C-alpha cells in the first residue's frame, strides 16, 4: 500500500518545508509598522507602537476591526463568513500577516524603513 518511493517523496517534501519554516523563523525580526491593504491597495499604514483600533471598511457593509495593542496587531472582529482572520494569533514580526480572504483584506507587518518609502509614495 505504501511504497518506498512514497516515503522518499514525503521525506523530501517535509525537509524542504521544515527548512523553509526554520529559515523564516531564524531570519525574522521585529516589525515597526502595520500596513493594511484591500485588494492590494494600501488602505492605511499605522505604527505598531501606538495602541489604536481601526475599522477597515464600514459597519454597514463588509468590515474588519483591527486592534493594535502593546506592540501587537490582532483582528478582533469581522463579519466575514469564515472568521479565519479573527482566529489568527496576534502578529508583530516583520512579514507576518493576517489575511481576510472573503474581504480581500491583508494586514501585514513591515519594518520601518521600507514603509517610510511607501508612505511617501502614497
Amino acid at each position, binding site marked *: *500500500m505504501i511504497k518506498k518511493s*512514497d516515503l522518499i517523496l514525503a521525506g523530501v517534501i517535509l525537509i524542504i*518545508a521544515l527548512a*523553509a519554516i526554520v529559515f523564516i523563523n531564524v531570519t525574522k525580526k521585529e516589525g515597526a509598522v502595520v500596513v493594511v491593504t484591500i485588494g492590494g491597495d494600501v488602505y492605511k499604514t499605522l505604527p505598531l507602537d501606538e495602541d489604536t483600533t481601526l475599522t477597515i471598511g464600514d459597519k454597514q457593509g463588509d468590515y474588519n476591526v483591527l486592534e493594535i495593542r502593546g506592540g501587537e496587531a490582532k483582528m478582533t472582529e469581522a463579519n466575514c463568513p469564515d472568521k*479565519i482572520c479573527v482566529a489568527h494569533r496576534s502578529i508583530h514580526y516583520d*512579514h507576518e500577516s493576517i*489575511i481576510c*480572504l472573503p474581504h480581500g483584506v*491583508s494586514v501585514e507587518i513591515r519594518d520601518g524603513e521600507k514603509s517610510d518609502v511607501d508612505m511617501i509614495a502614497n
Partner: protein
Amino acid sequence: MKTRNVAMYGMLIALAFILSYIESIIPIPVPIPGIKIGLANLVVITALFTMGPKQAFVLSMLRIVLVGFTFGNLSTMMFSFAGGMLSWLLMVAAKRWKRFSMTGVSILGGIGHNIGQILVAMWVINNSVLLYYLPFLIISGLVTGAVIGIVGALITANIKKLDFMKN
C-alpha cells in the same frame, strides 16, 4: 455511457457531497487561509484509480459546482476550482509516472490543492505575503494527503472486488 459508469458517478458524487458537508462543519484547527482537510479528494482519487483521469476530473468539477452552490458562493468556488485542477493535474501526472502508490499520488494531490488555493488567494488580495504560509500549507497537504491516500487505497481495493467492475 456505460451503465456501470452512471452508477459509479452517482455513488461517488453523493459521497463527495456528503464528505464536503462533513468538512464544512469541522472547525479548522489552524487559522491559515487556504488550508483544507480535503476529505472530498478521497472520492476524486478513488475515481482516478477505478475509472480514469477524465472521470475523476468530471467528478471533481461537478462536486465543486454542487458544493459551491449549496454551502459556499462564487468566491469559494473559485478557490476550489484552482485547488481542484492543480490537485488533479499533479495526481494524474504522478499516477502516469508509476513510481508512487496511491499514497504518494494522494500526497501530491493534497499539496496541489493547497497550493492552488493559495495562488488564487495571492491574486485576490494582490499581495505576495501569503507565500510565508506556503510551508505550512505544504505540510498540511502532505499529512491529509497521506491519510486520504491510505483510506482511498482500501476503498479502491474493495470497489475492484465488486462484480460489476469486473468486465
